[in-house]
């Protein structure tokens, strides 16, 4: 006797989410990542990430939306260094979403990614606690705006970020949570351009800042729901793994392991 149970009809959450592959996705090849941190710098420039200065950075308050995790394996002299770029996995079944009391972290229906609504956030930081990837960063101070955090040249206060703010991205004030958005401003720009020309967004037409800056081309971005796209083909390789897959968070980022 076999049980003929349709989990989707029963409404089991995992089953339904598993069917949805997601829209936008990313593949990171750890084999060719050199750990140069260009993606970190590019992300900071693109998304108006502030400098938190030396003391806070050393205390674990860096605001980077992407970080290079560095691991050593083996004993000297046979040491192998591994690099693992870690950013928001844009989970299909995100643990950060249900715990927010004010709906500040929500799932975008159209783009299939997690969004953080800065204006709505009241700063309970529950989402960051519940994120198994630890990729959410909190604005502990008014880093971006306070002159306290600026350089002092010739007795004049300089705001180093003010001349290079990206006008497409909000500057966050203190007390709100933030995280990687898959450069949603670029996604929207590409979609708008394609729509005005009466066509679909081409594969490779839109790249986020980290993928654009990567000198080794370790980061690939594109549509997961298009089987012809480069990112879909890479994501179905044998080397493909997803982080903490056992938690059923359904991450949209696939890592190609070394080897």
């Amino acid at each position, binding site marked *: 006797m076999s049980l003929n149970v349709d989990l989707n009809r029963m409404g089991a959450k995992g089953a339904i989410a598993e069917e949805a592959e997601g829209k936008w996705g990313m593949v990171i090849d750890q084999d060719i990542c050199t750990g140069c941190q260009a993606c970190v710098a590019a992300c900071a420039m693109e998304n108006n990430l502030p400098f938190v200065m030396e003391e*806070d950075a050393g*205390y*674990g*308050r*860096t605001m980077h939306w992407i*970080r290079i*995790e*560095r*691991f050593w394996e083996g004993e000297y002299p046979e040491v192998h260094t591994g690099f*693992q770029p*870690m950013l928001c996995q844009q989970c299909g079944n995100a*643990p950060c979403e*249900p*715990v*927010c*009391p*004010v*709906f500040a972290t929500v799932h975008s229906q159209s783009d299939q990614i997690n969004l953080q609504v800065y204006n*709505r*956030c*009241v*700063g*309970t*930081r*529950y989402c*960051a*606690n*519940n994120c*198994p*990837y*630890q990729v959410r*960063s*909190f*604005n*502990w*101070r*008014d880093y971006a705006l306070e002159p306290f955090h600026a350089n002092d040249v010739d007795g004049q206060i300089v705001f180093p970020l003010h001349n290079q703010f990206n006008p497409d991205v909000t500057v966050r004030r*203190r*007390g*709100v*949570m933030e995280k990687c958005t898959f450069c949603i401003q670029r996604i929207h720009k590409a979609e708008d351009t394609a729509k005005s020309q009466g066509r679909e967004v081409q594969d490779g037409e839109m790249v986020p800042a980290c993928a654009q800056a990567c000198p080794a081309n370790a980061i690939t971005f594109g549509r997961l729901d298009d089987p012809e796209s480069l990112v879909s083909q890479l994501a179905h390789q044998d080397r493909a793994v997803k982080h*903490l897959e056992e*938690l059923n968070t359904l991450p949209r980022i696939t890592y190609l392991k070394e080897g």
Partner: protein
Amino acid sequence: MAVASKYLPGAKKAHGNQDNEHELRQHLMHDPRPRGELNQMVMESMYATSWKFWVVFAILSILTATCFFYAWGYMIAEGLGVAGVMRPSYWGIFLVNTVFWIGISHAGTFISAILRVFKAEFRRPFTRAAELMTTFGLIQAGASIFMHMGRVWLSYWMLPIPNERQLWPNFHSPLMWDLLAITTYVLGSTMYLFLPLIPDLAMARDRSTGWRKTFFKILALGFRGTEGEWLHLRTAMNIFAFAIIPVMFSVHTIVSWDFAMSMRPGWSSTVFGPYFVVGALHSGMGAVAIVLFIMRATMKHMGYFIRAEHFDALGKLMLTVSMAWAYFFFNDYIVQWYGGDKWTDTLLHWHESGPMAWMFFSMLILNIAVPWLILWNRKFRQTPWLLASVGLLINVGMWFERYIIIPVSLTINRMPFTWKLYFPRIEIFLTIGTFAMFLLFYLIASRLIPLVPVWEVEEGQMAHSLTKVGRAVVPSVSEIDLTVE
């Protein structure tokens, strides 16, 4: 006064029939005094204020103003950066204090509602002191939650009120359940504090002059003590006594769900609900012992109302709760350890051998070893300063327990690259501030409202009597207590 020596700790245990009566008279219920005299004693305890009171009052006021209001204001102006919270310990001492103060608040409900429902006679003189603890503790718990928020000035966005933004709070979030549970508990326990206070306020109104008379007159709601008023009051108290018990249990269960509902190693434990409730009672009982000791040592006539028998009964409760806590701790621990999950295993090793291992083992010693070694002995239990010291140590241990559950456990997550140890900064001052404010509220309350529910004591003394059967003296209780029917 002759009475004064009877209940002192170390009073010789009497033997024989003639001393039997002497021994029974050591119980407050069998040592009745005229009602007028009792009322007078309670009023005097409120008025007798020495210079020492004002010194303590001044110190606590300064501490509250600087460590609570100034420090919090500074933190609001500067951002949470002045606190020690960071990745990965996004929650720090603020949440530790919240859980701690909610725990303290549980003692009030437990003593006054559960013991009232079960007709435990020893509760009578100190229900009010315990209930005040509930209200004042919850104020500090609420303040600690608000302190922890990044944008506290927008905290009203969590309230389900219609608004122009057309946004609604997320009822999937355990923090929303928390908000509702704590609000219910604050309202319920404050009403439950106020109801038994009405007859005492009326008593105080009839015995005071000047602004105090106006104050009591407003609060007493025109209570005159007629049969009908008592009937309504008893009905209301009866309803509240029963209704507040499930609220009390649910509140700390829901607070534990903030942790248990998450996906973190060490937090997602199904036994957290009852474990937290018992932990709350553990620290709450200890806090009651401290408050009773301070009341008895500093306030006039309190030696008559709070006696060795009360410390004895409280000590037994503390011992029982300590054993229950040990059971739940063991249960929580062994199931997590046996599960063998990689990250939980790492976390448990971190607790036992990490840099905060001293706190883990202090917790076990203070919460289990200290009460078990001391409270088994009646003489020790009846020594007020010793019981208060045990209560203080238990509270330190329970605070450590919450500290281990929140910032120490948050250090370990599934991304080893981010592991980092949390160090409190401005949180230390804010913690001092909440404690000072709690004590300050108590100090003010001790001069404004009768800390001993004198009508309950009088009622109990009327119900209890000593009868001579042959040569033996037998205590008897009559059923005039209509509180529970």
